[in-house]
């Protein structure tokens, strides 16, 4: 039988606010255990939550960016279950009235196909703490620093049909939240965590199969592997005549398998109800309009602008707009030079390679965009050959000054002047009569020998185009005059 996978993702996007969603503690990653959990986060008797305005604004930005409905009335609910990393015994989340309603995200697949993924909802909630199972024999240690970190949970419709589509969606969401600057996108630190709902049905069937939910997958690669494993597991069950059990599972990346989480079984009745410590959130049309006007240009719009206005190829535009910091850098370079294609080549080539080599992020690129721009200007006005330009780029990278200072200090100005260059070439022709004879005998390859000599004599600074022109001119005239003898 042919099977079809049906996948929906719930991604927890950690919002990059300065303080937590309901308290004034810092959500910064990596503090010593429990040094970032204030009484509100600890759920001590008498404490009360107060909602962070920025978390609300970020959720609205996200909703507007995907063209979703922004609910003018939303409510925080309590989701009740006992777990040691959940100090109040309930999580404050949004159940019946989420802040963001239905929307869609278009996802570009690598084969060029575009799929539209329905977004059921996106709601605000607080994160839980962390359990550490290793260090203490027979005991689990609880660190509540992460408790109360604001999350936007983005839930898709069951629209995805393959692990590849799931990953492409996850990547697209990753780029989007980074564009909006509402999440740092750091998967290794858990800034985006994915739950995947996976089921399988006979191809062409309408009805959905029983699903399992894989919890907390935190890398693009693992999303693909976990879903692939789970689809195969379910198909194996169905093909051997079994039934898939509805179940919550954990992906084990070491063993590349999913397995059932027994601890979650108890909490099947969360007893959601409106949190009486929080009032309904009413958003005015003015507020929503104000957030809308503050939205940055989104990846799709930027890509279209790059292909139409800047005449970049689809490939280049996709590459440059995949990460907002790259696109920002690219546009900053373009403020100094107007050659979009050459700038794109430099960014996708040398600059990207150097960052990769030194393990740096775009935001930390040591070459200021204006200086890469100056460098490109100097290529365009023939001051620099592409070879010299690479030397200048490395010097910029090493922080040796501005592009022009480096050209000056190192004497890297390209020789294009026909007078000076002509003198050098004439001397080389005179010194090498044997090669001149070969050239005259029709051996055109010998031209390379002359180019090499000129470059050597000029320490690589000669403009290769000019050298070629002058060599052809001088060798030709040389031959003609000799011939006239």
């Amino acid at each position, binding site marked *: 039988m042919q099977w079809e996978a049906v996948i929906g993702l719930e991604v927890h996007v950690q919002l990059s606010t300065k*303080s937590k969603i309901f308290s004034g*503690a810092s959500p910064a990653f990596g503090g010593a255990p429990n040094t970032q959990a204030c009484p509100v986060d600890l759920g001590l008797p008498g404490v009360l939550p107060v909602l962070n305005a920025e978390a609300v604004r970020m959720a609205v930005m996200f909703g507007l960016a995907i063209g979703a409905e922004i609910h003018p009335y939303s409510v925080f609910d309590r989701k009740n279950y006992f777990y040691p990393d959940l100090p109040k015994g309930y999580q404050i989340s949004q159940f019946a009235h989420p802040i963001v309603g239905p929307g869609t995200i278009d996802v570009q697949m690598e084969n060029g196909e575009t799929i539209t993924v329905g977004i059921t909802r996106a709601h605000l909630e607080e994160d839980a703490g962390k359990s550490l199972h290793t260090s*203490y024999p027979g005991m*689990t240690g609880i660190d509540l620093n992460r408790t109360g970190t604001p999350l936007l949970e983005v839930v898709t419709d069951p629209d995805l049909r393959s692990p590849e589509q799931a990953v492409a969606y996850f990547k697209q969401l990753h780029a989007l939240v980074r564009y909006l600057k509402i999440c740092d996108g750091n998967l290794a630190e858990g800034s985006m965590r994915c739950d995947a709902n996976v089921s399988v049905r006979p191809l062409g069937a309408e009805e959905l199969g029983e699903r399992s939910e894989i919890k907390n997958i935190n890398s693009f690669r693992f999303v693909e592997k976990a879903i692939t494993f789970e689809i195969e597991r379910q198909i194996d069950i169905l093909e051997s005549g079994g039934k898939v059990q509805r179940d919550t599972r954990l992906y084990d990346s070491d063993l590349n398998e999913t397995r059932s989480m027994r601890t979650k079984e108890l909490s099947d*009745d969360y007893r959601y109800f409106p949190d*009486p410590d929080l*009032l309904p959130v009413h958003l005015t049309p003015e507020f929503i309009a104000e957030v809308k006007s503050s939205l940055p240009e989104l990846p799709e719009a930027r890509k279209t602008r790059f292909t139409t206005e800047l005449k970049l190829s689809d490939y280049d535009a996709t590459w440059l707009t995949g990460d907002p910091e790259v696109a920002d850098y690219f546009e900053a370079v373009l403020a100094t030079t107007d050659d979009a294609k050459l700038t794109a080549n430099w960014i996708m080539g040398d600059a990207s390679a150097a960052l990769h080599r030194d393990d740096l992020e775009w935001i930390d690129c040591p070459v200021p965009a204006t200086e890469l721009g100056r460098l490109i200007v100097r290529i365009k006005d023939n001051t620099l050959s592409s070879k010299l330009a690479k030397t200048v780029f490395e010097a910029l990278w090493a922080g040796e000054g501005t592009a022009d200072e480096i050209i000056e200090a190192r004497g890297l100005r390209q020789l294009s002047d026909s007078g000076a260059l002509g003198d050098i070439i004439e001397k080389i022709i005179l010194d090498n009569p044997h090669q001149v004879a070969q050239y005259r005998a029709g051996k055109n390859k010998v031209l390379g020998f002359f180019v090499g000599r000129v470059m050597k004599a000029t320490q690589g600074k000669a403009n290769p185009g000019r050298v070629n022109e002058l060599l052809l001119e001088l060798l030709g005239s040389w031959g003609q005059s000799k011939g006239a003898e």
Partner: protein
Amino acid sequence: MANIDINHLCRLAQLALNDAEHEAVRGDLERIIAMVDQMQAMNTDHVEPLAHPLDANQRLRRDEVTEVVDRERYQLGAPATQDGLYLVPRVVE
């Protein structure tokens, strides 16, 4: 009146009752729910639920770090801690 599954409620609420308590609670809950069930005869068609006595909006807090965390003080009354972590019997996932 619906049958009250005391065991299920205790599981959700993480309470453990001995047999005597269990029976006493069953009796009490049955009487309480019977009293509460007077509500069912009262007409609430087209009535909006009231969650808060005041018809107010959620006030929003400025996004600022205002809390200075004093872990030692907050953990003074904690039943078991080590290296700043709260300890519980091993949780199996």
